[in-house]
């Protein structure tokens, strides 16, 4: 179950409202995945990055964006959470004006917060923009086995592992994952929502295989593929997998 937030411009005002709501219901968002409906937001990259950064700073787990099609955003969507559809809306109750509050003290706090927020946001924006300007190599090639407890995250392309991926380890890739060895851990491909991503393993014994958010755990893996050379792909909303038997 995911909740939907629908930010309305001006965003600064909406964020104030949001903070008031979050303050009234502490822990409401803890560990809850949230979908952000950006239908009312301008389809401009700086505004969206600002919004996402601000929400992440408030420890909101953003599962995806909704309300605009990937086509509308085009290249502006790079680095942002994947675009989804569906979910349940939560209404942000209007914040009550508390007459007993000390307006002066709050005003001073708010002013400082705004200054600090601006700096943080600028820095985050700069970091994101810089990371985008100097992307990692598209394909990450690892020639050592991935050991239990290790986590490899590569968000700019495919990951190739020459060796096995141990039980208790994970590989996260925005593109496809290729394992020339046994896949015994978790393989999370298409982490930015790329539905064309695939997972390939020389021997499949994974704890979890995921593509663009759709996943199967060890229990649901196709029995015919266990221990066999396998590839997994998305067919619409279904995660499919089949053994690669060398026959064409």
């Amino acid at each position: 179950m995911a909740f939907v937030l629908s930010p309305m411009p001006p965003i600064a005002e909406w964020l104030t409202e949001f903070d008031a709501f979050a303050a009234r219901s502490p822990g409401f968002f803890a560990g809850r995945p949230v979908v952000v409906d950006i239908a009312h937001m301008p389809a401009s990259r700086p505004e969206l990055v600002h919004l996402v950064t601000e929400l992440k700073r408030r420890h909101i787990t953003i599962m995806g964006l909704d309300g605009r099609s990937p086509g509308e955003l085009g290249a502006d969507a790079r680095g942002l959470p994947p675009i989804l559809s569906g979910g349940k809306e939560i209404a942000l109750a209007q914040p009550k004006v508390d007459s007993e509050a000390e307006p002066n003290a709050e005003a001073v706090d708010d002013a400082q917060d705004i200054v600090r927020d601006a700096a943080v946001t600028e820095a985050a924006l700069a970091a994101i923009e810089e990371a985008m300007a100097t992307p990692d190599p598209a394909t990450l090639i690892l020639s050592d086995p991935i050991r239990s407890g290790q986590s490899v995250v590569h968000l700019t392309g495919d990951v190739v592992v020459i060796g096995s991926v141990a039980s208790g380890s994970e590989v996260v890739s925005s593109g496809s994952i290729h394992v020339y060895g046994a896949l015994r851990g978790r393989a999370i491909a298409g982490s930015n929502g790329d539905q064309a991503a695939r997972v390939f393993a020389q021997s499949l014994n994974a704890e979890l295989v995921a593509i663009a958010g759709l996943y199967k755990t060890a229990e649901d893996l196709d029995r015919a593929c266990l221990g066999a050379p396998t590839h997994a792909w998305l067919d619409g909303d279904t995660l499919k997998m089949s053994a690669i038997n060398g026959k064409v």
Partner: protein
Amino acid sequence: MTMAKVIVVTSGKGGVGKTTSTAALGAALAQTGKQVCVVDFDVGLRNLDLVMGAERRVVFDLINVINGEAKLHQAIIRDKRLDNLSLLPASQTRDKDALTEEGVAGVIEEMRDKFDYILCDSPAGIERGATLAMRHADIAVVVTNPEVSSVRDSDRIIGLVDSKTQKAENDERVEKYLLVTRYDPIRADKGEMLKVDDVLEILSIPLLAVVPESQDVLKASNLGMPVTLGSPNSYAARAYTNAARKITGENVSVEIPQDTRGIFSKFFARKAA
């Protein structure tokens, strides 16, 4: 002598035979004529002194040396059976926070001048004690039981050896070897236990030795007599001795324990079960 090798005996999981193996390997290395010291890093839960049969001779310990309360030579206990084998005990009254990065570095550095092999018996877990025990290692002996939980923990430890040791940080490689202990060929054949090949396939590091589950090992530990000294002709002692020779650079092939019961006893065993 800068050729000294620091060996960490580690596993992640507890109870797999790190301490027993440290003692047996240390004694076997000493039997090849090398100067050897075994160091107990399990501060607070020390055992190596017991397994080495030196528990009644402990005066100072590793923490005393680190804190400068004793000199290294005062804390080191020389074995009564082999005079080129020594023990640096852990403290039983302190906890692992007493180990400091600089302190450990200083002690190991000083020991490198005095010994050919320094064997560090790591505590279980992946916290401070374990990471400091492996910190200066040239060689890691990863002790694993043929069961999935032990194998997974060993895999985790190998990852730490490849990232948290000084050698790894200097872009050098720590030599890693697999020591399979408590191996039972009968249970492995029945599929109740992982086979050596399965373990090797998962961990993909070279095999040092396979030590069978045996009464000799247990008895030796309880008598404070490393199995290589207590029952030198046992299968387990031979496995450790061959492992020691392999560490010194000899080309020794690894023997894998087989089910040696005759066909009749197999038949009867099955009947009884």
